């Protein structure tokens, strides 16, 4: 299915957010996620199911003022 990841359309074979993140290459990274504007805790990712057109944000620590 097609989902929007950090603003770009990506294709994923997996319905669960945790597996989709691994498929997209985020395995092992320290990241935090939101789905359609809602925070999804790391422990929730395996249970979170994606649907076509979902917006996923994958964020990591960065410099900030």
């Amino acid at each position, binding site marked *: 299915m097609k989902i929007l990841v950090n603003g770009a359309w990506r294709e994923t074979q997996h319905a669960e957010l945790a597996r989709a993140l691994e498929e997209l290459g985020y395995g092992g990274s*320290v990241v935090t996620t939101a789905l359609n504007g809602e925070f999804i*805790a*790391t*422990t929730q990712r395996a249970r979170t199911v994606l649907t076509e057109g979902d917006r996923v944000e994958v964020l990591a620590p960065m410099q900030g003022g």
Partner: protein
Amino acid sequence: MSLPRVYPIIDDAAWLPRLVPQGVRLVQLRIKDAPEHAVRTQIEAAQAYCRAAGVQLVVNDYWRLALAAGCDFVHLGQGDLDTADLPALRRARVRLGISTHDDGELERALALRPYYVALGPIYPTLLKAMPWRPQGLPRIAEWKRRIGSIPLVAIGGITLERLAAVFAAGADVAAVVTDIVRAADPEARMRQWLAVAGAEPERVSA
């Protein structure tokens, strides 16, 4: 100064990113039977994480490594007291938490003006092969009467179900190992602990 009510004890710094974001503000790193270089790495990682997140880290036993890593709080058992360089720790302004099981140990601990006194095991525990019989709730009340405003940390076999009773008996802080780390969902269990503890009224210190 008061301590947070909930005090998880972990054996690996990898637990920190899982438990701390649930609301933990005080944590003990207790590592047993590991080579010194591994312990050093663990302490340094824990110290770095806790410093950044503003969490109070307490290092069990390895006081030399803790000092070297810049830690400011160490937990010592009675055996550790025999060999620790207490004047060095004082000079470095390292705070001490001391374990006690009986009157003699309590007197020895109080003479060192610790930041907290720990009493255990409150209940039979799965982890340590304890030479001590369970202390039980009335012992908590007795200890609190004797140590007054020094925080009393209860440890050993405390579960979510027993937590309210432990506080009611007079403990200021409840330490926990198994009930969190062996839970099916440790993060959720941690949150539940914090929720129960959060409902406790503020203790007014003497």
